[in-house]
């Protein structure tokens, strides 16, 4: 067999194994806290009021448990995934020694980092120095919460974190980490760190604007800030995804389909609709173009936001040694590292929820078919009503619609992550003044113009 295919196969295997571990573990933890434990309490014969209170408390804990389990394992996997993917792009093999196929490489790295000496440099502001990684890391945990609801298809356990202004909340939280960077850079008592931190502040402020504007455009089309609703609006098919104009093209495709099927009535009905809005087709195409460009802007801004190449100036290795985290070692460095990858995951999942239809399949029948099939199998199970019977266990563990949604959102998010890795493998780094010029002179005007255009076009379609 071709060794290259073999390597790709190994990479795929590794990804599947890790992802099933991650999401299996997360779901198992959530289920244990949110379903199994309340059931146990109810069955234990406690007074009803106490029991319901206790279950309520446990249910409220579920999102927290989910995030706490999910973030460290996920970051570990992402580091490994990044290294293996980079190895694939550069005709190497990547880490392949620790565990089968190098599966446990990052786990070993994490353990190593935990045991390393935690150094606070001479002259550093110890409190700030310690607080910086925490402040850098905390937002990525808090920020994930509303996304959980959208990612799980508004599963009842996660309904509590579904804020009506979800995306607004996520964006607000996402701008906090820069404070951590500046603190870390300043407290390190190192000129390179300081320069890196200041660069980071400048960069984060400038690139947040196009990032937010592109999200605003999506909210404008959706008419809501609720991530679950935004995701649900895109459920029909590929064409209703926000990246393709949020359904702007649907009537035309329907027209073509109807034409091909020879369904004259439908064709007539659609044509009548068009006559009311003669500029419709033109506007729809323009709108799709606008949305695709917005997606590009979002990806660019997101790369800058999470300090990825080509925008990794705060830690530009060839210039600033390692930028703001030059002086960090051991667990503090590990937290920076963890947060960086979690941030990448967060921005990628925002992109897949906002632009790529969230947990919905690209083709209309796919999701429904899968759900029905799985639901059918589950219904066959005997004794699914009695508590603690195997049927009950499986039924409460496996929710067909959640499984399907989780699968698609994972696929979309990690595709974006791998795209980010591809970018990292290819592009050189901007210079700070070019970065600022690009942000302020190109991206911000472009996104403003497009936003106005989109507002107008939306009326025409």
């Amino acid at each position, binding site marked *: 067999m071709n*060794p*290259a295919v073999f390597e790709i196969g190994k990479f795929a295997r590794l990804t599947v194994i890790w992802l099933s571990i991650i999401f299996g573990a997360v779901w198992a933890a959530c289920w244990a806290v949110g379903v199994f434990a309340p059931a146990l309490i109810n069955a234990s014969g406690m007074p009803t009021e106490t029991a319901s209170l206790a279950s309520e408390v446990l249910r409220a804990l579920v999102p927290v448990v989910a995030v706490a389990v999910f973030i460290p394992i996920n970051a570990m996997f992402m580091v490994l995934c990044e290294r293996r993917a980079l190895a694939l*792009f550069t*005709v*190497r*093999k990547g880490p392949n020694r620790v565990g089968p196929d190098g599966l446990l490489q990052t786990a070993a790295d994490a353990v190593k980092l935990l045991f390393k000496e935690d150094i606070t440099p001479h002259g550093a502001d110890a409190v700030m120095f310690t607080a910086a990684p925490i402040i850098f890391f905390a937002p990525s945990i808090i920020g994930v919460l509303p996304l959980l609801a959208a990612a799980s298809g508004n599963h009842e356990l996660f309904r509590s974190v579904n804020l009506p202004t979800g995306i607004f909340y996520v964006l607000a939280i996402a701008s906090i980490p820069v404070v951590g960077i500046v603190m870390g850079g300043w407290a390190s008592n190192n000129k390179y760190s300081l320069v890196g931190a200041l660069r980071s502040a400048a960069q984060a402020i400038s690139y947040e604007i196009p990032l937010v504007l592109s999200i605003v455009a999506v909210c404008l089309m959706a008419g809501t800030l609720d991530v679950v609703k935004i995701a649900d609006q895109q459920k029909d098919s590929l064409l209703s995804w926000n990246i393709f104009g949020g359904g702007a093209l649907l009537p035309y495709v329907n027209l073509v389909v109807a034409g091909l099927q020879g369904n004259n009535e439908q064709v007539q009905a659609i044509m009548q609709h068009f006559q009311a809005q003669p500029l419709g087709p033109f506007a729809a195409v323009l709108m799709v173009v606008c949305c695709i460009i917005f997606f590009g802007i979002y990806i660019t801004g997101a790369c800058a936001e999470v300090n990825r190449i080509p925008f990794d100036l705060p830690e530009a290795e060839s210039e600033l040694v390692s930028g703001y985290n030059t002086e960090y070692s051991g667990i503090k460095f590990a937290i920076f590292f963890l947060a960086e990858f979690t941030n990448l995951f967060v921005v990628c999942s925002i992109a897949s929820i906002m632009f790529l239809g969230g947990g919905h399949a690209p083709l209309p029948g796919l999701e429904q078919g899968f759900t029905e099939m799985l639901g059918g199998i589950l219904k066959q199970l005997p004794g699914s009503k009695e508590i603690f019977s195997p049927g009950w266990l499986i039924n409460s563990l496996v929710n067909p619609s959640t499984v399907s949604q989780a699968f698609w959102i994972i696929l979309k998010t990690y595709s974006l992550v791998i795209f980010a890795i591809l970018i990292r493998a*290819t592009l050189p780094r901007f210079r700070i003044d070019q970065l600022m010029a690009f942000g302020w002179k190109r991206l911000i005007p472009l996104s403003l113009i497009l936003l106005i255009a989109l507002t107008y076009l939306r009326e025409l379609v």
Partner: protein
Amino acid sequence: MFGLVGRAVESLYYVCVGLWTVAKHTGRAPITKEFPDTMPDLPGAFRGRLALAVNPETSEHLCISCRQCERVCPDKCIDITAHKSPETGKLELIDFKIDHGLCMFCGLCTEVCPTTCIINTNDFEMSDYSREALIYDLKKLTLTQDESAHYFSKKYLPIPKPKPKPAPKPAAAAAKPADGVAAPAKPAPPAAKPAEGAAAAKSAPAATDKPAGDAAATKPTAEKKADDSKDSEKEKAAPEPSAAEGKAEPDKTEG
């Protein structure tokens, strides 16, 4: 305005070309060699650890103690001990030490060696726990007959002819002078090292007094004299008679 858009599109196009070029590499076989599992295929000329070859056919030691390598070594990492055999009047090798911690693997010694005795092997895994362990002595340096044959064929070296006079092997030759024949006016030992003269004067009586060929008896004196303590340790660790004889040797020679 259009220029700007054009440039943006062009830039995007070239970025995509770059991304595609990188992505294309996914389909190529990796060039990584998993080192300890698959050893690198080293060429014959590779300059690895130094070793002394024996004649692949007759297994006689090829070194003629000419000290060419010792002379040419830029790092002075080779140390040869040899004496002139009283019987044949030829130089005989007693010990050959190479300090691989000093060696820079330039291969000059292998070039000047008239008998292609000292060769660079393909071995490069020499890591050890102490610097002293990197000093290889004659025993550690000498290759087996099979290994010698392997390197001779790999390096395309002509198989050397056996030495003209079937001289006894160093160990056998070593035993000879100890048979009490030491008396016949020992010609001044190969005066390569000035220090040897002094040592010779000191040890002369001891050498003549010793019962011939009694390895056990010569051993204590040898140990006492050995200025290099670790060497004697090595000898103690290897109590086989040939080693003891080898040790008795310099003692005799210098006497």
